[in-house]
Protein backbone atom coordinates (compact mmCIF):
# COMPACT_ATOMS: atom_id res chain seq x y z
CA UNK A 1 0.00 0.00 0.00
CA UNK A 2 2.72 2.38 1.12
CA UNK A 3 4.61 1.40 -2.01
CA UNK A 4 1.68 2.31 -4.19
CA UNK A 5 1.40 5.73 -2.60
CA UNK A 6 5.12 6.28 -3.07
CA UNK A 7 4.90 5.33 -6.72
CA UNK A 8 1.82 7.52 -7.06
CA UNK A 9 3.75 10.51 -5.77
CA UNK A 10 6.64 9.78 -8.12
CA UNK A 11 4.19 9.51 -10.98
CA UNK A 12 2.52 12.82 -10.22
CA UNK A 13 5.86 14.57 -9.75
CA UNK A 14 7.32 13.19 -12.95
CA UNK A 15 4.15 13.92 -14.83
CA UNK A 16 4.05 17.53 -13.69
CA UNK A 17 7.73 18.12 -14.37
CA UNK A 18 7.55 16.66 -17.86
CA UNK A 19 4.55 18.75 -18.65
CA UNK A 20 6.22 21.85 -17.30
CA UNK A 21 9.21 21.23 -19.55
CA UNK A 22 6.91 20.52 -22.46
CA UNK A 23 4.96 23.69 -21.84
CA UNK A 24 8.19 25.68 -21.66
CA UNK A 25 9.44 24.12 -24.90
CA UNK A 26 6.17 24.81 -26.68
CA UNK A 27 6.17 28.42 -25.49
CA UNK A 28 9.81 29.18 -26.16
CA UNK A 29 10.19 27.37 -29.47
CA UNK A 30 6.70 28.11 -30.76
CA UNK A 31 6.64 25.55 -33.56
CA UNK A 32 3.65 23.48 -34.46
CA UNK A 33 5.21 20.07 -33.95
CA UNK A 34 5.31 20.98 -30.26
CA UNK A 35 1.74 21.93 -29.47
CA UNK A 36 0.84 23.58 -26.21
CA UNK A 37 0.16 20.82 -23.66
CA UNK A 38 -2.96 22.65 -22.52
CA UNK A 39 -4.43 22.28 -25.99
CA UNK A 40 -3.53 18.63 -25.98
CA UNK A 41 -5.15 17.93 -22.62
CA UNK A 42 -8.29 19.72 -23.73
CA UNK A 43 -8.61 17.04 -26.38
CA UNK A 44 -8.12 14.28 -23.84
CA UNK A 45 -11.67 12.94 -24.09
CA UNK A 46 -11.14 12.02 -27.73
CA UNK A 47 -8.93 9.09 -26.74
CA UNK A 48 -11.92 7.49 -25.07
CA UNK A 49 -14.00 8.06 -28.18
CA UNK A 50 -11.17 6.34 -30.03
CA UNK A 51 -11.51 3.36 -27.68
CA UNK A 52 -8.00 3.69 -26.38
CA UNK A 53 -8.58 0.63 -24.18
CA UNK A 54 -8.70 -1.60 -27.20
CA UNK A 55 -5.41 -0.15 -28.42
CA UNK A 56 -3.76 -0.57 -25.03
CA UNK A 57 -5.08 -4.11 -24.74
CA UNK A 58 -3.84 -5.08 -28.20
CA UNK A 59 -0.34 -3.77 -27.51
CA UNK A 60 -0.16 -5.31 -24.05
CA UNK A 61 -1.18 -8.67 -25.43
CA UNK A 62 1.61 -8.57 -28.01
CA UNK A 63 4.21 -7.41 -25.51
CA UNK A 64 3.03 -9.88 -22.89
CA UNK A 65 3.11 -12.89 -25.16
CA UNK A 66 6.46 -11.90 -26.66
CA UNK A 67 7.95 -11.45 -23.21
CA UNK A 68 6.47 -14.68 -21.87
CA UNK A 69 7.81 -16.63 -24.82
CA UNK A 70 11.28 -15.10 -24.42
CA UNK A 71 11.33 -16.06 -20.76
CA UNK A 72 10.09 -19.59 -21.42
CA UNK A 73 12.80 -20.10 -24.02
CA UNK A 74 15.54 -17.80 -22.71
CA UNK A 75 15.70 -18.77 -19.04
CA UNK A 76 16.20 -22.52 -19.60
CA UNK A 77 18.73 -21.90 -22.36
CA UNK A 78 20.59 -19.40 -20.20
CA UNK A 79 20.66 -21.81 -17.27
CA UNK A 80 21.76 -24.65 -19.53
CA UNK A 81 24.59 -22.51 -20.91
CA UNK A 82 25.57 -21.49 -17.39
CA UNK A 83 25.90 -25.08 -16.24
CA UNK A 84 26.78 -27.24 -19.21
CA UNK A 85 30.15 -26.63 -20.76
CA UNK A 86 29.13 -28.41 -23.94
CA UNK A 87 25.93 -26.43 -24.35
CA UNK A 88 27.88 -23.25 -23.76
CA UNK A 89 30.53 -24.17 -26.31
CA UNK A 90 27.92 -24.74 -28.98
CA UNK A 91 25.44 -22.03 -28.17
CA UNK A 92 27.70 -19.19 -27.03
CA UNK A 93 29.14 -18.34 -30.47
CA UNK A 94 25.69 -18.61 -31.99
CA UNK A 95 24.12 -16.27 -29.45
CA UNK A 96 27.05 -13.90 -29.49
CA UNK A 97 26.93 -13.62 -33.25
CA UNK A 98 23.16 -13.33 -33.52
CA UNK A 99 22.86 -10.73 -30.78
CA UNK A 100 23.81 -7.72 -32.93
CA UNK A 101 21.83 -8.85 -35.99
CA UNK A 102 19.15 -6.20 -36.40
CA UNK A 103 16.01 -8.28 -35.92
CA UNK A 104 13.80 -5.61 -37.42
CA UNK A 105 15.42 -6.31 -40.79
CA UNK A 106 14.02 -9.81 -40.56
CA UNK A 107 10.47 -8.47 -40.76
CA UNK A 108 9.85 -9.79 -44.29
CA UNK A 109 10.88 -13.24 -43.14
CA UNK A 110 8.78 -13.26 -39.97
CA UNK A 111 5.85 -11.85 -41.87
CA UNK A 112 5.90 -14.65 -44.38
CA UNK A 113 6.47 -17.34 -41.77
CA UNK A 114 3.94 -16.23 -39.15
CA UNK A 115 1.57 -14.07 -41.13
CA UNK A 116 0.98 -10.38 -40.80
CA UNK A 117 -1.18 -10.65 -37.69
CA UNK A 118 0.04 -11.06 -34.15
CA UNK A 119 2.24 -14.03 -35.09
CA UNK A 120 4.98 -12.04 -36.76
CA UNK A 121 4.64 -9.19 -34.27
CA UNK A 122 5.18 -11.48 -31.32
CA UNK A 123 8.01 -13.17 -33.20
CA UNK A 124 9.84 -9.86 -33.63
CA UNK A 125 9.43 -8.95 -29.95
CA UNK A 126 10.57 -12.44 -29.05
CA UNK A 127 13.64 -12.27 -31.30
CA UNK A 128 14.68 -8.94 -29.84
CA UNK A 129 14.20 -9.82 -26.19
CA UNK A 130 15.23 -13.47 -26.05
CA UNK A 131 18.93 -12.82 -26.64
CA UNK A 132 19.05 -10.28 -23.85
CA UNK A 133 17.36 -12.79 -21.54
CA UNK A 134 19.71 -15.62 -22.47
CA UNK A 135 22.86 -13.55 -22.04
CA UNK A 136 21.71 -12.04 -18.77
CA UNK A 137 20.63 -15.38 -17.29
CA UNK A 138 23.85 -17.03 -18.34
CA UNK A 139 25.92 -14.23 -16.84
CA UNK A 140 24.07 -14.20 -13.56
CA UNK A 141 24.27 -17.98 -13.31
CA UNK A 142 28.03 -17.73 -13.68
CA UNK A 143 28.17 -15.10 -10.91
CA UNK A 144 26.52 -17.33 -8.32
CA UNK A 145 28.87 -17.99 -5.41
CA UNK A 146 30.12 -21.57 -5.66
CA UNK A 147 29.64 -22.20 -1.96
CA UNK A 148 25.88 -21.89 -2.51
CA UNK A 149 25.99 -25.02 -4.62
CA UNK A 150 28.30 -26.88 -2.27
CA UNK A 151 26.07 -26.24 0.67
CA UNK A 152 22.90 -27.17 -1.15
CA UNK A 153 24.21 -30.15 -3.02
CA UNK A 154 25.91 -31.60 0.02
CA UNK A 155 22.51 -31.45 1.73
CA UNK A 156 21.38 -33.98 -0.87
CA UNK A 157 19.67 -31.72 -3.41
CA UNK A 158 19.19 -33.04 -6.91
CA UNK A 159 19.49 -30.88 -10.03
CA UNK A 160 15.87 -29.79 -9.97
CA UNK A 161 16.10 -28.79 -6.32
CA UNK A 162 19.31 -26.86 -6.91
CA UNK A 163 17.68 -24.90 -9.70
CA UNK A 164 14.67 -24.27 -7.52
CA UNK A 165 16.50 -23.26 -4.34
CA UNK A 166 19.70 -21.72 -5.68
CA UNK A 167 19.63 -20.82 -9.36
CA UNK A 168 16.21 -19.26 -9.79
CA UNK A 169 16.26 -17.09 -6.67
CA UNK A 170 19.81 -15.99 -7.45
CA UNK A 171 19.11 -14.87 -11.00
CA UNK A 172 15.75 -13.30 -10.24
CA UNK A 173 16.84 -9.75 -9.31
CA UNK A 174 18.95 -9.33 -12.42
CA UNK A 175 16.29 -10.98 -14.54
CA UNK A 176 13.71 -8.48 -13.33
CA UNK A 177 16.00 -5.55 -14.12
CA UNK A 178 16.47 -7.09 -17.49
CA UNK A 179 12.74 -7.50 -18.03
CA UNK A 180 12.36 -3.81 -17.28
CA UNK A 181 14.82 -2.88 -19.99
CA UNK A 182 13.21 -5.40 -22.35
CA UNK A 183 9.79 -3.90 -21.72
CA UNK A 184 11.15 -0.50 -22.69
CA UNK A 185 12.56 -1.98 -25.87
CA UNK A 186 9.28 -3.74 -26.61
CA UNK A 187 7.32 -0.53 -26.14
CA UNK A 188 9.52 1.36 -28.57
CA UNK A 189 9.39 -1.47 -31.07
CA UNK A 190 5.60 -1.11 -31.16
CA UNK A 191 6.00 1.57 -33.82
CA UNK A 192 7.62 -0.89 -36.01
CA UNK A 193 5.38 -3.90 -35.59
CA UNK A 194 2.10 -2.06 -35.44
CA UNK A 195 2.77 -0.35 -38.76
CA UNK A 196 1.26 -3.29 -40.62
CA UNK A 197 -1.55 -5.77 -40.47
CA UNK A 198 -3.47 -4.20 -37.64
CA UNK A 199 -5.77 -1.35 -36.75
CA UNK A 200 -5.22 -1.66 -33.04
CA UNK A 201 -2.37 -0.96 -30.72
CA UNK A 202 -0.81 2.12 -29.20
CA UNK A 203 1.92 2.11 -31.83
CA UNK A 204 -0.72 2.10 -34.53
CA UNK A 205 -2.59 4.90 -32.79
CA UNK A 206 0.44 7.18 -32.76
CA UNK A 207 1.54 6.28 -36.29
CA UNK A 208 -1.96 6.86 -37.58
CA UNK A 209 -2.13 10.30 -35.97
CA UNK A 210 1.33 11.07 -37.30
CA UNK A 211 0.37 10.11 -40.84
CA UNK A 212 -2.67 12.33 -40.53
CA UNK A 213 -0.37 15.12 -39.30
CA UNK A 214 -2.62 15.31 -36.29
CA UNK A 215 -0.07 16.23 -33.67
CA UNK A 216 -2.62 16.61 -30.92
CA UNK A 217 -3.70 12.98 -31.26
CA UNK A 218 -0.11 11.93 -31.66
CA UNK A 219 0.88 13.53 -28.37
CA UNK A 220 -2.17 12.05 -26.69
CA UNK A 221 -0.97 8.66 -27.88
CA UNK A 222 2.52 9.35 -26.58
CA UNK A 223 1.10 10.35 -23.20
CA UNK A 224 -0.95 7.16 -23.04
CA UNK A 225 1.97 4.96 -24.04
CA UNK A 226 4.18 6.66 -21.42
CA UNK A 227 1.62 6.12 -18.70
CA UNK A 228 1.21 2.48 -19.68
CA UNK A 229 5.01 2.11 -19.74
CA UNK A 230 5.23 3.72 -16.34
CA UNK A 231 2.64 1.34 -14.93
CA UNK A 232 4.50 -1.64 -16.37
CA UNK A 233 7.75 -0.42 -14.83
CA UNK A 234 6.13 0.14 -11.46
CA UNK A 235 4.57 -3.33 -11.55
CA UNK A 236 7.98 -4.86 -12.11
CA UNK A 237 9.38 -2.78 -9.26
CA UNK A 238 6.65 -3.91 -6.93
CA UNK A 239 7.13 -7.54 -7.92
CA UNK A 240 10.88 -7.15 -7.40
CA UNK A 241 10.27 -5.65 -3.97
CA UNK A 242 8.00 -8.50 -3.02
CA UNK A 243 10.05 -11.45 -4.14
CA UNK A 244 13.56 -10.02 -3.92
CA UNK A 245 13.32 -8.19 -0.63
CA UNK A 246 16.55 -9.84 0.46
CA UNK A 247 18.56 -8.27 -2.33
CA UNK A 248 17.76 -4.67 -1.49
CA UNK A 249 18.60 -4.92 2.21
Amino acid at each position, binding site marked *: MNRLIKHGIIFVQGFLLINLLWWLASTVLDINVIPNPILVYKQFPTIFEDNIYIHIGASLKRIGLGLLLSLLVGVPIGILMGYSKIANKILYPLIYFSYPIPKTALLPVTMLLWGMRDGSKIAIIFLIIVFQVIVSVRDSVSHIDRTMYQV*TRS*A*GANKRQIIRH*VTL*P*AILPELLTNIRVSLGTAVSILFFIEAYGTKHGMGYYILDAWSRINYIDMYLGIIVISIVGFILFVSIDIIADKICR*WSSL
Partner: protein
Amino acid sequence: MILGTSGCGKSTLVNTLAGTITSTSGDIVYVKEQQSKPLNPKIHKIGIIPQNCGLLPWKTVKENCLLPLRIRKEQVSESRIKEITNIYKSLDIEKLLHKYPKELSGGQAQRAAIARAFIMRPDLLLMDEPFSALDEITREEARELFLKIWNQHKPTTVLVTHSIEEALYLGNRIIVMGTDKGNIKHQMDNPYFGQLSPQSLEYLAAKQLLRKQLIKTEVGEQTSE
Protein backbone atom coordinates in the same frame (compact mmCIF):
# COMPACT_ATOMS: atom_id res chain seq x y z
CA MET B 1 41.21 -31.11 12.86
CA ILE B 2 43.39 -28.98 10.62
CA LEU B 3 45.73 -26.27 11.82
CA GLY B 4 47.92 -24.04 9.66
CA THR B 5 49.19 -20.53 9.07
CA SER B 6 46.96 -18.02 7.37
CA GLY B 7 46.83 -18.47 3.61
CA CYS B 8 48.36 -21.94 3.61
CA GLY B 9 45.40 -23.44 1.79
CA LYS B 10 43.07 -24.74 4.46
CA SER B 11 39.94 -23.20 2.95
CA THR B 12 41.04 -24.42 -0.42
CA LEU B 13 41.40 -27.93 0.98
CA VAL B 14 37.95 -27.88 2.52
CA ASN B 15 36.44 -26.49 -0.66
CA THR B 16 38.14 -29.11 -2.75
CA LEU B 17 36.94 -31.79 -0.39
CA ALA B 18 33.41 -30.45 -0.58
CA GLY B 19 33.68 -29.92 -4.32
CA THR B 20 34.97 -33.40 -4.96
CA ILE B 21 32.27 -34.91 -2.86
CA THR B 22 29.50 -32.89 -4.33
CA SER B 23 30.65 -33.42 -7.85
CA THR B 24 30.53 -37.13 -6.86
CA SER B 25 33.69 -38.00 -8.69
CA GLY B 26 33.88 -40.61 -5.95
CA ASP B 27 37.49 -40.50 -4.87
CA ILE B 28 36.60 -40.25 -1.26
CA VAL B 29 35.34 -43.30 0.48
CA TYR B 30 33.31 -43.14 3.60
CA VAL B 31 33.85 -45.99 6.02
CA LYS B 32 31.09 -46.81 8.42
CA GLU B 33 30.24 -50.04 10.16
CA GLN B 34 32.90 -51.91 8.27
CA GLN B 35 31.24 -51.19 4.94
CA SER B 36 32.99 -48.83 2.60
CA LYS B 37 30.88 -46.99 0.02
CA PRO B 38 31.80 -44.07 -2.15
CA LEU B 39 30.54 -40.87 -0.59
CA ASN B 40 27.32 -39.68 -2.12
CA PRO B 41 25.26 -36.77 -0.89
CA LYS B 42 22.13 -38.67 -1.95
CA ILE B 43 22.86 -41.35 0.65
CA HIS B 44 25.11 -39.69 3.20
CA LYS B 45 24.27 -36.44 4.86
CA ILE B 46 27.07 -33.95 4.51
CA GLY B 47 27.09 -30.75 6.49
CA ILE B 48 29.35 -27.92 5.38
CA ILE B 49 30.20 -24.67 7.11
CA PRO B 50 32.31 -22.62 4.68
CA GLN B 51 34.48 -19.74 5.88
CA ASN B 52 31.94 -17.22 4.56
CA CYS B 53 29.06 -19.20 6.16
CA GLY B 54 27.36 -20.02 2.83
CA LEU B 55 23.86 -19.03 3.87
CA LEU B 56 21.48 -18.56 0.95
CA PRO B 57 20.85 -14.80 0.98
CA TRP B 58 17.29 -15.18 -0.36
CA LYS B 59 16.12 -17.35 2.52
CA THR B 60 15.59 -16.34 6.11
CA VAL B 61 17.69 -17.92 8.82
CA LYS B 62 14.89 -20.38 9.56
CA GLU B 63 14.42 -21.36 5.92
CA ASN B 64 18.17 -21.78 5.63
CA CYS B 65 18.33 -24.02 8.68
CA LEU B 66 15.45 -26.21 7.58
CA LEU B 67 16.42 -26.38 3.90
CA PRO B 68 18.40 -29.65 4.23
CA LEU B 69 15.38 -31.35 5.82
CA ARG B 70 13.12 -29.96 3.13
CA ILE B 71 15.42 -31.15 0.38
CA ARG B 72 15.50 -34.66 1.81
CA LYS B 73 11.76 -34.51 2.46
CA GLU B 74 12.37 -35.80 5.95
CA GLN B 75 9.42 -36.30 8.25
CA VAL B 76 9.99 -34.04 11.23
CA SER B 77 8.76 -35.73 14.39
CA GLU B 78 7.77 -33.99 17.60
CA SER B 79 11.04 -34.91 19.27
CA ARG B 80 13.00 -33.69 16.27
CA ILE B 81 11.27 -30.33 16.51
CA LYS B 82 12.30 -30.15 20.14
CA GLU B 83 15.89 -30.98 19.21
CA ILE B 84 15.88 -28.24 16.58
CA THR B 85 14.46 -25.69 18.99
CA ASN B 86 17.16 -26.66 21.44
CA ILE B 87 19.85 -26.07 18.85
CA TYR B 88 18.39 -22.64 18.10
CA LYS B 89 18.40 -21.88 21.81
CA SER B 90 21.91 -23.07 22.48
CA LEU B 91 23.21 -20.97 19.62
CA ASP B 92 21.02 -18.08 20.67
CA ILE B 93 19.48 -17.41 17.28
CA GLU B 94 15.79 -17.83 18.14
CA LYS B 95 15.22 -14.12 17.73
CA LEU B 96 16.93 -14.03 14.37
CA LEU B 97 14.94 -16.77 12.65
CA HIS B 98 13.05 -14.37 10.41
CA LYS B 99 15.99 -12.21 9.43
CA TYR B 100 17.79 -12.48 6.12
CA PRO B 101 21.53 -13.28 6.16
CA LYS B 102 22.40 -9.73 5.11
CA GLU B 103 20.83 -8.44 8.32
CA LEU B 104 23.04 -10.55 10.55
CA SER B 105 26.25 -9.60 12.30
CA GLY B 106 29.33 -11.67 11.49
CA GLY B 107 28.91 -13.90 14.52
CA GLN B 108 25.19 -14.35 14.05
CA ALA B 109 25.69 -15.59 10.49
CA GLN B 110 28.25 -18.08 11.73
CA ARG B 111 25.88 -19.37 14.37
CA ALA B 112 23.12 -19.78 11.79
CA ALA B 113 25.48 -21.79 9.60
CA ILE B 114 26.43 -23.97 12.57
CA ALA B 115 22.76 -24.52 13.38
CA ARG B 116 22.03 -25.56 9.83
CA ALA B 117 24.86 -28.08 9.84
CA PHE B 118 23.90 -29.52 13.22
CA ILE B 119 20.17 -29.73 12.49
CA MET B 120 20.62 -32.06 9.55
CA ARG B 121 22.42 -34.70 11.71
CA PRO B 122 25.25 -35.10 9.22
CA ASP B 123 27.33 -38.22 8.59
CA LEU B 124 30.20 -36.02 7.50
CA LEU B 125 30.85 -32.53 8.76
CA LEU B 126 33.24 -30.04 7.10
CA MET B 127 33.81 -26.87 9.07
CA ASP B 128 36.10 -23.95 8.12
CA GLU B 129 36.85 -21.80 11.16
CA PRO B 130 33.28 -22.17 12.40
CA PHE B 131 33.80 -20.38 15.72
CA SER B 132 36.16 -17.57 14.67
CA ALA B 133 33.69 -14.68 14.79
CA LEU B 134 32.14 -15.68 18.11
CA ASP B 135 32.90 -14.14 21.45
CA GLU B 136 34.49 -16.40 24.01
CA ILE B 137 31.34 -17.31 25.90
CA THR B 138 29.31 -18.13 22.83
CA ARG B 139 32.26 -19.98 21.41
CA GLU B 140 32.57 -22.22 24.44
CA GLU B 141 28.89 -22.99 24.28
CA ALA B 142 29.07 -23.74 20.60
CA ARG B 143 32.00 -26.07 21.18
CA GLU B 144 30.09 -27.91 23.87
CA LEU B 145 27.09 -28.19 21.60
CA PHE B 146 29.33 -29.59 18.93
CA LEU B 147 30.70 -32.24 21.29
CA LYS B 148 27.18 -33.14 22.41
CA ILE B 149 25.94 -33.59 18.88
CA TRP B 150 29.12 -35.34 17.85
CA ASN B 151 28.64 -37.83 20.66
CA GLN B 152 25.09 -38.60 19.50
CA HIS B 153 25.91 -39.51 15.89
CA LYS B 154 29.71 -39.47 15.74
CA PRO B 155 29.92 -37.98 12.27
CA THR B 156 33.30 -37.91 10.53
CA THR B 157 34.42 -34.33 10.96
CA VAL B 158 37.01 -32.11 9.34
CA LEU B 159 37.47 -28.87 11.24
CA VAL B 160 39.76 -26.00 10.31
CA THR B 161 40.87 -23.73 13.10
CA HIS B 162 43.48 -21.19 14.13
CA SER B 163 43.24 -21.96 17.80
CA ILE B 164 45.57 -24.56 19.20
CA GLU B 165 43.39 -24.90 22.27
CA GLU B 166 40.38 -25.54 20.13
CA ALA B 167 42.29 -28.14 18.18
CA LEU B 168 43.31 -29.93 21.34
CA TYR B 169 39.82 -29.70 22.79
CA LEU B 170 37.82 -30.83 19.78
CA GLY B 171 40.23 -32.83 17.64
CA ASN B 172 40.75 -36.62 17.62
CA ARG B 173 43.55 -36.26 15.16
CA ILE B 174 45.39 -33.02 14.51
CA ILE B 175 47.03 -32.15 11.21
CA VAL B 176 49.31 -29.16 10.75
CA MET B 177 49.55 -27.94 7.19
CA GLY B 178 52.71 -26.48 5.66
CA THR B 179 52.77 -23.42 3.49
CA ASP B 180 54.23 -25.12 0.47
CA LYS B 181 51.56 -26.59 -1.73
CA GLY B 182 49.43 -27.94 1.06
CA ASN B 183 51.78 -30.60 2.38
CA ILE B 184 51.31 -32.01 5.84
CA LYS B 185 53.86 -30.78 8.37
CA HIS B 186 52.79 -32.75 11.34
CA GLN B 187 50.19 -35.29 12.36
CA MET B 188 49.24 -36.47 15.79
CA ASP B 189 46.50 -38.32 17.58
CA ASN B 190 45.07 -36.23 20.33
CA PRO B 191 44.66 -37.81 23.75
CA TYR B 192 43.07 -34.66 25.20
CA PHE B 193 39.97 -34.84 23.01
CA GLY B 194 36.93 -33.52 24.87
CA GLN B 195 38.87 -32.38 27.93
CA LEU B 196 38.57 -28.75 28.81
CA SER B 197 41.97 -27.13 29.50
CA PRO B 198 43.66 -29.87 31.51
CA GLN B 199 46.56 -28.58 33.55
CA SER B 200 48.87 -31.57 33.10
CA LEU B 201 52.41 -31.09 31.86
CA GLU B 202 51.87 -33.31 28.84
CA TYR B 203 49.05 -31.12 27.69
CA LEU B 204 51.24 -28.03 27.86
CA ALA B 205 53.97 -29.90 26.01
CA ALA B 206 51.58 -30.87 23.22
CA LYS B 207 50.48 -27.25 22.98
CA GLN B 208 54.11 -26.15 22.71
CA LEU B 209 54.77 -28.76 20.05
CA LEU B 210 51.91 -27.54 17.89
CA ARG B 211 53.02 -23.94 18.36
CA LYS B 212 56.49 -24.84 17.22
CA GLN B 213 55.11 -26.60 14.20
CA LEU B 214 53.22 -23.48 13.26
CA ILE B 215 56.24 -21.25 13.72
CA LYS B 216 58.48 -23.65 11.84
CA THR B 217 56.16 -23.49 8.90
CA GLU B 218 56.46 -19.80 8.94
CA VAL B 219 60.23 -19.81 9.21
CA GLY B 220 60.34 -22.35 6.43
CA GLU B 221 58.27 -20.04 4.34
CA GLN B 222 60.48 -17.06 4.94
CA THR B 223 63.69 -18.88 4.19
CA SER B 224 62.34 -20.58 1.13
CA GLU B 225 62.30 -17.30 -0.68
